[in-house]
């Protein structure tokens, strides 16, 4: 079943930081099935290039590979992105998210983690819907 909702597609800007260019090809392929959103992905293979992109334009979501040489893992990279004053959602994607240190992802400023095998149209649709909705000031209008 597709996302067949008769509404205008929501535009989303995604920055994908991954040292493996094939991941970009794969995610582009999966995004073709996300009918609910019009997604533009910029791809960079290093954190430095990612930080440069962030200085140039804004992104709705960042997806970052856990292991990104020369850095060890998200515990080093995500705080550097936050230090660059990015306050949008950051998701860590990795082949294996079962290691214990992944349990601390929120402490390091990441919003979610997902294994690369799990990333498909439905997961991406959920992420885009959830992390681009306005969740500010809940219930304020009721006062």
């Amino acid at each position, binding site marked *: 079943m597709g996302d067949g*909702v008769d509404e205008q597609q929501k535009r989303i800007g995604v920055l994908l930081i991954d040292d493996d260019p094939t991941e970009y090809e794969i995610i582009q392929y999966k995004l073709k099935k996300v009918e*609910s959103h019009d997604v533009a992905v910029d791809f960079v293979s290093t954190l430095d290039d990612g930080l440069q992109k962030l200085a140039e334009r804004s992104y709705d979501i960042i997806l970052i590979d856990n292991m990104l040489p020369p850095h060890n893992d998200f515990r080093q990279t995500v705080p550097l992105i936050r230090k660059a004053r990015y306050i949008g959602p950051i998701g860590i994607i990795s082949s294996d998210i079962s290691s214990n240190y992944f349990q601390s992802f*929120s402490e390091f400023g990441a919003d979610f983690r997902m294994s690369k095998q799990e990333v498909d149209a439905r997961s991406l649709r*959920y992420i885009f819907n*959830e992390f681009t909705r306005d969740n500010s000031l809940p219930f304020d209008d009721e*006062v």
Partner: protein
Amino acid sequence: MNLDLTDESIDAELNRAINRTDFFRVFRMLADRYGFLSFAVFELTGVRVEPRLDRICLLADLPRGRGSLANVSSEESQALLGQLAGLRRPAILPEPPAALAPYMPCRRANLIPMTALTGERLVLVLADDLATRPEAEVAGAIFDFLQALEKLAVAEGLDAETPRFRRREIEVVEWTAEGKTSSEIALILGLSEYTVNEYIGSAMRKLDALNRIHLVTKAIRVGIIS
């Protein structure tokens, strides 16, 4: 009593689940395993005079996300909440509830209620495209989803009569009391604005606060911040 899910890999993911996206992943895995089309989890607390389904929906795998439920009329919302609140055991509906039908296209709906230790109730709505299912499969699905709902209730702080506050929730409330906006707090704490708003939302829910000022006032009154 601690029972495990019937699928070890999903059980491991459930035990690692921390936030709602983790729980979305687990519920998605279970829905895929049993062949359900989509799902939504509602929390039957804080239901006000004019309930909005998007505000009491904790998790949803819907084409336009849980935010789309804001479009449900208050009459249909009220009717659905009445139906969900009256549930005492899992039920199968021959068609999806009217309020959810445009957002959860399916042949019929399975409803699974769970009462948390606080007395609050979570209800899972599963969209099903099968006309019938073997009883054993239905029982297995109910068992597994109930385990997931119980873990979700714990993660949402519904496992104790007095709400427990996470360190991050307290930090966010403290900075809110200092007059900082969500984006300012995000910069200070190195988080996303989305997550800061989620912490504010969960703290408001736990204290039954109506807005940020009310949240800060109540947090001071009960001693969460000073």
